[in-house]
């Protein structure tokens, strides 16, 4: 019987676990099983919420939903509601490319507001709900 089990039995409170046991649980909970190798790429997350477009001119007011997919060696990040995408060799590269694309899209649609067709007008309205100029 371990000292921790003894404590639980004596007091009825949850057992205090040994540091080794705590460490093992931490690993089970927080370390992804597949970190990737040179032959096997890292598994991409299914979806994230994007809270910044890394541009001093623009601020994200409402998180932008980003879906990831993998095509061969490339990762594609797609802001579904904006019909915009980015790609790269890693999740980070794809996200950076997408952030740049969103900034470019915002600035272009802002500049061309008077000339937008119905679909792009719809995208512009969505963008304004998600992003604002600082």
């Amino acid at each position, binding site marked *: 019987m371990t000292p921790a089990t003894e404590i639980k039995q004596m007091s009825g409170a949850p057992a205090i676990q040994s540091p080794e046991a705590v460490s093992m649980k931490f690993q089970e909970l927080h370390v992804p099983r597949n970190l990737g190798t040179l032959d096997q790429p890292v598994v991409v997350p299914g979806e994230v919420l994007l809270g910044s477009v890394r541009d001093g001119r623009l601020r994200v007011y409402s998180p932008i939903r980003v879906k990831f997919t993998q095509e*061969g060696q490339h990762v594609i990040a797609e802001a579904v509601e904006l019909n915009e995408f980015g*790609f790269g060799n890693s999740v980070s590269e794809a996200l950076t490319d997408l952030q*740049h694309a969103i900034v*470019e*899209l915002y600035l*272009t649609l802002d500049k061309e507001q008077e000339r*937008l*067709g*119905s679909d*792009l007008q719809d995208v512009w309205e969505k963008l304004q709900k998600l992003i604002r100029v600082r």
Partner: protein
Amino acid sequence: MTIKAHEFDHLVTKLQLKTRNSKDLLAWFEVDGKIITRTRRSKGSGDLPMQHSIRQQLKLNEQQMSKALGCTLTRDDYIDILRTKGLL
């Protein structure tokens, strides 16, 4: 599915998309001064892993995209497609 940079450029020429150079090559389709669709491609000459995304931005289905890449889709055909979808 990938799209080659030169295929994208051919599409731009064939459909008479307007372009602007930025970090990427930005391309958009105008009719009577209105911007109807837009897309982009990264610079470089390699394969672009996003044919699906470009197709969606141009509002084409897979068959129409194949025709566009195969040079059998004209600007007028594209205008008809957009009109059918209620975008014009």
